[in-house]
Structure formats: structure tokens, C-alpha cells
């Protein structure tokens, strides 16, 4: 450290600091020794602790945090405004009417006839299997 710096430091350190007001001694010590005032600094509530923790977290760069929050709000707004409000296609389709079913079957039959594999039996008709009692089966075998 050179002389100039030392001189400058010395000059600064010689500047006397302001004195503490004398009347504060009684007031501050009175408050410190007062049980009522002591209770003022009793453990803080959950919300005040939370508040202080959050302020400690956000304090260093409040503008950056605010900017980030604004970007999120903007994204949500854009997302919400671009949402497709038209109902689903499936919702629009109503069940086919009986006339339409008949017409479709007619077309199917005509197509099958043209192709040559038309079966008179209704393809949609299910074969019903009804099991018979064993006694009846025996009768069938006997005959």
C-alpha cells in the first residue's frame, strides 16, 4: 500500500462519527428490560417466518422473478386463448337412422352380388346355439 493511499485512509478515518443520542440509553435499556417489549420479539408466527423466507429468496432479483412470473402468465394466457373450442367430431355424429341401416345393407347386398359372394343368410345374424339336455341327446343317438 503506497503513501498516498495511507494518507487518504488516515484522512478518512480521522472524520469523527456522529454520537449516539444520550436519551436513547434509557429508552432502549428500558425497552430491553421490559417483559412486555421482550415478548414482542417472541418466536414469529408461521406466516411471518414464511414471509421473511420468501422475501429472502426473492429479494436479490425481484425484477427477474417478476419477469419470470409474467412470462408464465403470458404462456398460460396464450395457451388458454388458443384452445380449440369446437366440440369433438365424435360428438357431432348422431346414431344412424333405421332407414340408413336398411339402405346400407341394400348397398352391401348389391356389392356382394356384383362380386359374386353374396350369401343370402344375413351375415349379421348370429347363430344361436342352444344346448339341449343330455336325455334328449341320448334320444337322438338312439334314433
Amino acid at each position, binding site marked *: 500500500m503506497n503513501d498516498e493511499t495511507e494518507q*487518504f485512509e488516515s484522512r478518512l478515518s480521522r472524520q*469523527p*462519527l456522529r454520537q449516539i443520542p444520550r436519551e436513547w440509553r434509557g429508552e*432502549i*435499556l428500558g425497552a*430491553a*428490560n421490559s417483559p412486555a417489549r421482550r415478548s414482542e*420479539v417472541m418466536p414469529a408466527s408461521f406466516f411471518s417466518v414464511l414471509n421473511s423466507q420468501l422475501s429472502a429468496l426473492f429479494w436479490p432479483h425481484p425484477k427477474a422473478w417478476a419477469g419470470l412470473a409474467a412470462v408464465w402468465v403470458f404462456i398460460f394466457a396464450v395457451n388458454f386463448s388458443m384452445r380449440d373450442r369446437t366440440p369433438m367430431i365424435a360428438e357431432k355424429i348422431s346414431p344412424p337412422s333405421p332407414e340408413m341401416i336398411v339402405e346400407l345393407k341394400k348397398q352391401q347386398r348389391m356389392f356382394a352380388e356384383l362380386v359374386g359372394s353374396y350369401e343370402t343368410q344375413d351375415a349379421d345374424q348370429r347363430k344361436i346355439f342352444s344346448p339341449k339336455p343330455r336325455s334328449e341327446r341320448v334320444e337322438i343317438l338312439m334314433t
Partner: protein
Amino acid sequence: MPGSLDIERLYDEHAQPLYAFLLNFTRDEADTRDLLQEIFIKLARKPKLLDDIREERAFLIRLAHNAAIDLMRRRGTRDKTKENFAAEKLSPFAPTNDPDEKVFRAELANALGELPEEQRSVVHLKLWEGLTFEEIAAALDVPPNTAASRYRYGLDKLRERLRPLYEEMKKAE
């Protein structure tokens, strides 16, 4: 629990340097008083805080520093910048009738107010409390090298800011 005598002793030994430190930090007498009172109430309520403390002054400065930082955080939401918080208010220096000294102290107070808080604290503790960098580091909970570099940066800024006035006063002497 320390008796009232202990609190009084603590006050008599440490209140003035704590006051000067806090005033340089807040530049507001009412805030300084509130912070000082908060510290002594805390000490009265939790006397064991000082049980294993070897350096009372450093410990109390740390309490004061933390309390001032908390206050700044609360104020930070209302004030535009922390620099403004300390720039235009009460000078930490004693008033004087000497016109040259008056101007110099006013300029010095302004220049200090323009320093970032971390540099201002270190400069204050080094120049006006005479603490070593190790003691400052312990008080502010930073490494000694950090304390030293903050001091140099702060001092350089002060010298740059006060150079014309300082040179003029040197010539006059």
C-alpha cells in the same frame, strides 16, 4: 440470563459503534434506533446468545448487520433501489463548523452512500472501527480475502469520487 447490569454494560461498551455502523447503513435515525433497540431486546430475551462468544463486538456487529439487511429487504420492496435507500439521508459524521471539513464530510457521506452495501460495511468497519480483515470477516460472515477485496474496491471508489476535493484540501494544508 444476564441482569440489567449486563445489558447496561453491553450498551455502554458497544452501543456507540453499533449506532455508527447502523447509521452508515440506514442513514435514518429512526431506523437506526429501531434496529439498536431490536438488538438489545434480543440480547435481553436470549442471554445465552453471548455464552460462547469470545469477540462480543464482532458478534454484535453481525447481529446489527443482519438486522440492517433484513430491514433493507423489507424496504427494498418499497424503495426503488437500495442505493437510494442510503443516498440522501442523515450523514453518519459528526457536524462541524469548519466549512472545508463540512464540505468534505458531506461529500464523503454521499460517496459512502453510493457504495454497495457490502463495500460500505467493510470500509466502515476498517476505517472507523479499526477492525482487521479477519475480524471484519468474522463479523460479516465472509472470507477474509473477500473482506479485503471489498475494502480495496470501496476505497478506490471513494478516492476516485473525492479526488478533486481531497487534492484541493491537501494543497490548502
